């Protein structure tokens, strides 16, 4: 018998654009999604290790460092999505998705839902 415990998806969002962080927080923070935003790289890395979020959004161009470098410092098992404003990037890191800025809010929303349902299914399996 399936037990559906409604559990919010823990999401880490890292972007040096504070306004974008603010939007992410304001728009997606619901009972389904628990959003934690960061504009400082080291804080985000620390959080990822300590809190082990379910999904990570990373910006590509960060002050002094690139998104794929940051990804390598974070736990491997957490799925990561890269957001980029660049025209073309090359990265060897296995991101689950690469989303170009400016993005469609609905695309992000769909993604969040997708990962949330995957999480739920996993929880069921684990149970």
């Amino acid at each position: 018998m399936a037990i559906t415990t409604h559990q919010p998806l823990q999401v880490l969002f890292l972007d040096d654009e504070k306004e974008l962080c603010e939007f992410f927080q304001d728009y997606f923070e619901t009972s389904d999604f628990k959003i934690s935003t960061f504009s400082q790289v080291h804080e985000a890395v620390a959080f990822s290790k300590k809190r082990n979020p379910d999904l990570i959004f990373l910006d590509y161009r960060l002050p002094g460092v690139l998104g794929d470098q940051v990804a390598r410092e974070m736990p491997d098992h957490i799925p990561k999505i890269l957001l980029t404003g660049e025209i073309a990037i090359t990265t060897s890191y296995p991101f689950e998705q690469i989303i170009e800025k400016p993005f469609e809010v609905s695309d992000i929303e769909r993604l969040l839902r997708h990962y949330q349902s995957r999480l739920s299914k996993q929880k069921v399996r684990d149970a």
Partner: protein
Amino acid sequence: MPDRLEKLEEKITSTEEVLSAVSDLTFLVDRDTRVVQLWYRDVSALFIPPGEVRNRKLSELVPADLIEPLQRAIDELDRGQLAEAFEYQDLFTAGDDGARWFECRAMPTPNPDQFVLVISDVTERRRLRSESKALRFKLDRAQEELATFFETAPELLCIAGTDGRFKKLNRAWERLGYSDGELLQRPFIDFVHPDDVEPTLREIEALRSGRTTIQFKNRYRTKDGSYRTLSWNTTPDLESQLLYAAARDVTEMEDMEQQLAEAKALAKMGTWTFHQDFRRSKWCSQMREIIPDLFGSRDNLNERLLLNIHPHDRRELKSGLERSIRSGQPLNATCRVGCGNEFSWIELRAKAKWRSTGEFEGLVGTCQDVTERLQAEQSLQEERLKTLQVSKLASLGELSAGVAHEINNPLSIISANLKLLERYREQPERFQKKIEVLEKSCRRVSRIVRGLKRFSRSSAADARGFHRLSNIIAESVALVESRATRGGVEIRLNQEVDCKFFCNEIEIEQVLVNLMNNSIDALRGQPGAWLELCLTEQSEEVLLSVKDSGAGISKEFVNRLFEPFFTTKEVGSGTGLGLSICRGILKSHHASIRLNDSGPNTCFEIRLPKRLCEIEGTLES
């Protein structure tokens, strides 16, 4: 009897005539100088008083000056010391006629008690004699002078026969290297350059017919086989069949003239003088090469010249010439010759000449065809602009990666927040806040696009003017800001003064962007990296420095920094033209750039001359 008398009278008359003819006064005197007989021709100029003179003492008749020598002569004759006649000459002053010369002679007669005395007025004879002596002296002197002139004249002087041989040569001929003998022995035509023989013979023919030669040129062979060019002035004397000739050696002058003409042709330069008196205006043949239609006639050069100038430049040149005449300052004008699209460029230089009386005399000047030079300068300028543009595009390329990011980020913020606006429609405070975020993001995008547009514009379109340095700094910082942020480099500004600098603002911006890009590339990823733009005032210059937290530039590279194509960046990431172009841009602004390696950090100093700055006072930093 009458016959005898007649004969006697006749004899007397003839004797008297003879005596009168040979002398002025002839006396027969006795031992006491008493007059026995007097013959005279015309005594009016002499001293014999009227009346009977016979038996009178000579001393009563003759001026005292003559008595003493006459008496002495009689005494000597009497003593038998003198057998023949003798003479005395002495000066005598007689009344109104002034000084006169007399000649006195005494002669014995068959009667030992009687003597013949002859007194002649020789004033005229003496005068003639002394005149002829003076004339002779003058003549000798003139001949001597002539000989001296002949020998010392630098010209080659000669007398030649119409038979074609020299008769007399002066010393100047030595310069041909021959002895007089060698020159005199052979016909002079033997010494003439083969090409000049025919014209020389024609000239001699003309001389034979009495014509005079002026400045006829031919070449004479010297002993060493080289040729000298001689310019002849010759006059024939038909009676004596002689030619009197003076030749000037114009070899050097001809060489110089030829060199000058060649140099002028090479430089496409002509010379001219314009005289108030139009007939004295002159121009060299080269002028016609430059301005083919210039000189139909030698009328007013001024106007003929202006007629050939391109209509667009005519008025300016005219006023330039007038200004030059008024001010005495030389004119240096560049203008077109021709009309419509068919023209060439000339550079005209002129200087007014004044008489010592202060009166305007005319103009002297040069005229040079500078079409080729101007075209070369123009293509060089085009090349320069092209290089500038290429370099700018390279900078733009470096910037573009960041630019996309810089535009896409605010666009993300805008599109995302539009979604929120709907949600906040009922919450005025949050709604307003989001509107502000949108506005700010829009400004960010438009600022970056505006900056890029400005920066990428071709320099040729931008005239120089006075531009505020703080604006130029702000614009260039805006261009590199995102790149700096992403590279982790903090940009600091330290403006002690502000001023306007006479420049092409985009080009100065290009220099700053280039220097800042270099700093960002070098510092990327270094912790605590910064770059600082300082604007300070010094005694002669305004100093704009770009300093960063880097540890300077390796000594081995310092000397090559500003060389074109020198780069330490990876292949493909830098053109190596940046700094050399920076230096070129600044040089064209009379400014300079150098690396100040005295401090611990990397620091490029740009020095802008104060004479091109409008200082606007000190700023609070």
